[in-house]
């Protein structure tokens, strides 16, 4: 669970990636345009010059929102005790300030309001942060394999959580320690990587110095912190199970207070990432050209990383390390809604919320008596999907 497959060094860090016009590339493009359209392998043939019909921004957002609404309703309704939609509506109505006179069976009301609703909403918040963070990282590091744990947030949070659990500290400290560990790990990665980039890559364009170093520093920091965490975990085998349960991640202990705890981070992180989605599109032409177009690339990268890290660390602090959401959902958004980050970022946030709520429904219903760790569900869906994305990526050689 811990090591996600996304910690692969950026394969297109340099600005002379495979998309340059020039040399044989231009020749290939020309002959490609000569045939009718680009009938890529995998049946992506379309009318000459047309993209394979993405949904378009408005429709993609509406579709994702509709799926989220259905997921939320299903999440409240489905479980060991299934609750009809009418009772859900009545329960929600009963919490309105001037609500109509409704009577709800107290047990149903308790299941809905105290158990299911906080869990579903927390799952939605966590999912939107993980997927939004993944989309932002993919954009800012121009790497389709980037996930929100790329810079060590998961390893840092894991170490923080493990430290609290083995020291027998109050479990109220758990989210704080996980959040602090995650943020500190990313800060360490960033300062080490940015400094190494300044010294080591004089020849790189001013904007680009650092990207590769930051990613490499992320791998090193994550490995170091994971080693420390593993050592602590093995040295205190009596708490192995609770450490392991935290690392697997889940929403089973969701409460209203946890949901409220992360709402400020979700708002700050989400609105910041959404506000930067046009600039992520500028970055699609590479760091040198984005810089020549007037973009302060290092500053943009720092702001996006801070925003994504706050959101992801907050999510991880209440849910543990849930994998794959942050990499699958942005790719789903890209495949269905188009390659522009103006669409990918919002659709990833909405879609990530829906995806995690649906995965959580599966996690608590697949087996009758116990819950399957949600990370198992997301990975069981995620791994095959990831392979599918890789295949279609190779076929089209593009996610920029």
């Amino acid at each position, binding site marked *: 669970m811990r090591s996600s497959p996304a910690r692969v060094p950026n394969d297109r860090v340099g*600005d*002379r*990636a495979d*998309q*340059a*016009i*020039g*040399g044989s*590339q*231009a*020749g290939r*493009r*020309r002959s*490609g*345009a000569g045939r009718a*359209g*680009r009938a890529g392998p995998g049946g992506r043939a379309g009318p*000459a*010059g*047309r*993209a394979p019909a993405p949904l378009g921004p408005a429709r993609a957002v509406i579709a994702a929102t509709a799926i989220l609404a259905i997921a939320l309703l299903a999440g409240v309704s489905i479980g060991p005790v299934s609750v009809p939609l009418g009772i859900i509506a009545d329960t929600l109505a009963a919490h309105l300030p001037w609500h109509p006179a409704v009577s709800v069976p107290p047990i149903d009301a308790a299941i809905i309001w105290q158990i299911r609703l906080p869990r579903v909403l927390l799952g939605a918040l966590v999912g939107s942060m993980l997927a939004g963070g993944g989309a932002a990282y993919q954009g800012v590091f121009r790497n389709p394999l980037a996930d929100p744990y790329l810079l060590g947030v998961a390893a840092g949070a894991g170490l923080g959580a493990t430290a609290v659990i083995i020291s027998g500290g109050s479990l109220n400290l758990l989210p704080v320690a996980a959040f602090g560990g995650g943020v500190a790990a990313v800060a360490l990665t960033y300062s080490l990587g940015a400094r190494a980039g300044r010294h080591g890559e*004089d*020849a790189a*364009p*001013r*904007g680009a110095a650092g990207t590769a170093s930051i990613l490499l520093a992320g791998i090193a920091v994550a490995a170091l912190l994971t080693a420390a965490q593993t050592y602590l975990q093995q040295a205190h085998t009596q708490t192995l199970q609770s450490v392991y349960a935290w690392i697997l991640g889940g929403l089973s202990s969701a409460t209203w207070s946890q949901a409220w705890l992360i709402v400020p981070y979700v708002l700050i992180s989400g609105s910041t990432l959404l*506000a930067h989605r*046009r*600039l992520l*599109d*500028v970055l*699609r*032409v*590479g760091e*040198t*050209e*984005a*810089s*020549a*177009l*007037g*973009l*302060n690339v290092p500053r943009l990268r720092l702001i996006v990383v801070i925003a994504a890290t706050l959101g992801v660390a907050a999510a991880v602090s209440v849910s543990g390390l849930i994998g794959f959401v942050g990499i699958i959902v942005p790719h789903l958004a890209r495949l269905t809604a*188009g*390659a*522009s980050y103006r669409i990918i970022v919002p659709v990833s946030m909405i879609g990530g919320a829906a995806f995690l709520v649906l995965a959580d429904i599966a996690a608590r219903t697949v087996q009758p008596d116990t819950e399957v760790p949600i990370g198992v569900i997301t990975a069981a869906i995620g791994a095959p999907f990831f392979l599918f994305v890789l295949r279609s990526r190779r076929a089209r*050689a*593009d996610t*920029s």
Partner: protein
Amino acid sequence: MIGVDDLRVSFGATTALDGVSVTVATGEWVALIGPNGAGKTTMLRAIAGLTHSAGGIVLAGQPGRQLSHRRRARLIAYVPQHPQLPPEMTGLDYVLLGRTPHLGYFAVESQSDRRICLDLLDRMALTDMAGRRIATMSGGEAQRLVLARALAQQAPILVLDEPTSSLDLGRRVDALELIDELRGERSLTVLSAIHDLTLAGQFADRLVLLRHGKVAADGKPTDVLRDNLLSETFGAGIGVLRTAGGELAVISHRQRPASPA
């Protein structure tokens, strides 16, 4: 106008530019020529603020070093030799990127930005490309699209690194003619690296010959395109012929005579 005074760039122990001073007047087209590794690209990047450098840089009367990224991008539009072309981006979206220096941090493009970019697409004979993906465009179309993005910056200075390297000879002449027309229409100051010495001599007002990071010659094409100067600089036998129409053609001599067939 571009003014460069004692420009120096080094990468570690390697000196790429060793005190280059060049002035390009407003509306003038100056071509940088020279062998591989002479510092042409480094000089263009330094002027565009994309690499660390020392020395004076003046852009359109303003001290280049004190400009923010955004302010600089309103004065100077830079096109690298191999622009990155996101294959899934449409032509219009790509040209709209050129409006970046004119947009507020959180702003999105207005109707007037779109108007500017659509007009540019028309000017570049790319009207049909507005909604097309870049992946479907030919080399010549992509080249004009990149130029349209640079012009969307509405900067008085255009810096082009080998703008025609990926094109066939006919498209090269087309592209350079287009740049020349646009220079006239918009009073642009153009500084470009051009590998093809014949084309450089035909289109530029002045040639600056770089060698080992220094200016080896600076002057009108007839002054710079000389047999011995070029042969020495490029380390090969190079001849300059004058055509009946008065144009200079630069040819290379084989080191050994061609073997008889």
